[in-house]
């Protein structure tokens, strides 16, 4: 009996408990005639819940309807960005890390060069949370594993399958914050702040050495000329693109 427990039972229990949980995926039917590039995800048309009632600068949980669109499965990597800007340099072992230190305009130019565009804020949020109004792309809350370090720790864009969205989009709740094409506006915004900030979405926030995921509906804002190590981007496009 002891032998059985030691060699079979406990190892099996251990393996089961260590297995990474998978995020339940929304079943997608891509319409005939629509070609989805390998590096993109098809997000079907329809309503989703945008914002949260407790967040005054969001749509407070209203239902928003969008046409179908395509969005990059991963954040744009450093290696991909070098094809666009040959002078851009990166450490070879970080080729699959998200590109950062890019201004809004540079991100927009990249997407245009790819025959795509930056995602609208609503598109980004739908791709991150699906249609059930979830707070985290992967649904369940847990602490970020890198607590205890004050600073930004990016990682390869395809590393965290356990943190994908219900549409299978990576990096919507961690890694870099991402430029969207929208200006940061809300009811009652001070006049001086109009057309001053672009919305960035989906990164981490921190207090001293405590790092936290930010909810799918959380809106951050940043001046479009800013370029920081915590901001990157991904592209999107309407139904047909390259």
């Amino acid at each position: 009996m002891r032998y059985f427990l030691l060699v079979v039972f406990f190892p099996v229990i251990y393996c089961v408990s260590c297995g990474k949980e998978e995020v339940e995926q929304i079943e997608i039917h891509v319409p005939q005639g629509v070609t989805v590039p390998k590096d993109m995800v098809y997000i079907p048309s329809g309503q989703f819940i945008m914002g949260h009632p407790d967040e005054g600068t969001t749509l407070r949980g209203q239902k928003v309807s969008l046409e179908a669109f395509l969005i990059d499965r991963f954040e744009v990597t450093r290696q991909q960005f070098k094809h666009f800007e040959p002078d851009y340099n990166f450490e070879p072992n970080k080729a699959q890390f998200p590109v950062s230190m890019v201004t809004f305009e540079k991100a927009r130019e990249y997407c245009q060069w790819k025959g795509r565009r930056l995602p609208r804020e609503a598109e980004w949020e739908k791709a991150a949370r699906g249609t059930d109004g979830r707070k985290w792309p992967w649904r369940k809350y847990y602490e970020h594993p890198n607590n205890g370090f004050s600073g930004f720790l990016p990682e390869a864009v395809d590393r965290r399958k356990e943190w994908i969205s219900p549409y299978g989009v990576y990096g919507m709740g961690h890694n870099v914050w991402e430029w969207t094409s929208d200006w940061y506006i809300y009811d009652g915004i001070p006049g001086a702040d109009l057309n001053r900030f672009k919305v960035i979405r989906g990164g981490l926030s921190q207090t001293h050495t405590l790092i936290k995921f930010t909810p799918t509906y959380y809106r951050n804002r940043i001046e479009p000329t800013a370029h920081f190590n915590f901001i990157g981007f991904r592209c999107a496009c309407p139904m047909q693109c390259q």
Partner: protein
Amino acid sequence: MKILGQKLDRRFFLSLFSLFAVATFLPKRVFGKSDYRRDKNIPKQYIQNRDRPGFFIRSANPFMGVDVNSWGLSISGMVENPVALSYEDLFGFKSISQISRLKCVECWSATAKWEGFRFQELIDRVKPDLQAKYIYFQSADSYYESFTLEELVRPRVLMVLRMNGQPLSKDHGFPLRLIAPFKYGYKNVKYITSIKFTDSRKRNYWSNHGPYSVDGTIQPGIDHPLDFRKKPLRINGGEVFHPFDKRPS
């Protein structure tokens, strides 16, 4: 047997032993202890961490502060014209002033009016090589920091000589400190003595002594401003501007 005129006999070794014994039991301050990082009995006159209302003082290595008569700024490394500047020399650069918030990684922040000159003035003086992409600062208290050159020529970065209309106090980095408002406070090096242009990045003090990044860019998160009774406010990342702060136009 004699060494340097001293006879090596029993009496010599006994006196040597007794001197060592006495030295062991003497209080450390007799020898002018200089490292108080792990000692709470820091002499009052030393610069040290103090939670002063309005603007906390933080200093990694407690020390007496800089005597300007023996202070000089060395700028060297991969440059065409290495220079050594005195305190007076620094007032020959074009003076710039700005109000900006210093955001500490410990979560508090405070504002001040800072006056000084742009880092570009130093670049123009020493003419760095094209390969010199990094800057390494050293301080009078053995602290050290590193930056990319690009970061230091950003518009809001200032080499600071004055704070709130007065010369920098010893506590705040006299005679020269850096203000890079988009970096956590620990990057805003004080009591600067040396600036070196290099072609590779060096680490900084806190990445070697604590869980802090070399980069030190202020991340999106929460701030507790001292001028808002330390109430928590969200910050977007980069230079901190709260709703009651005036943004530069």
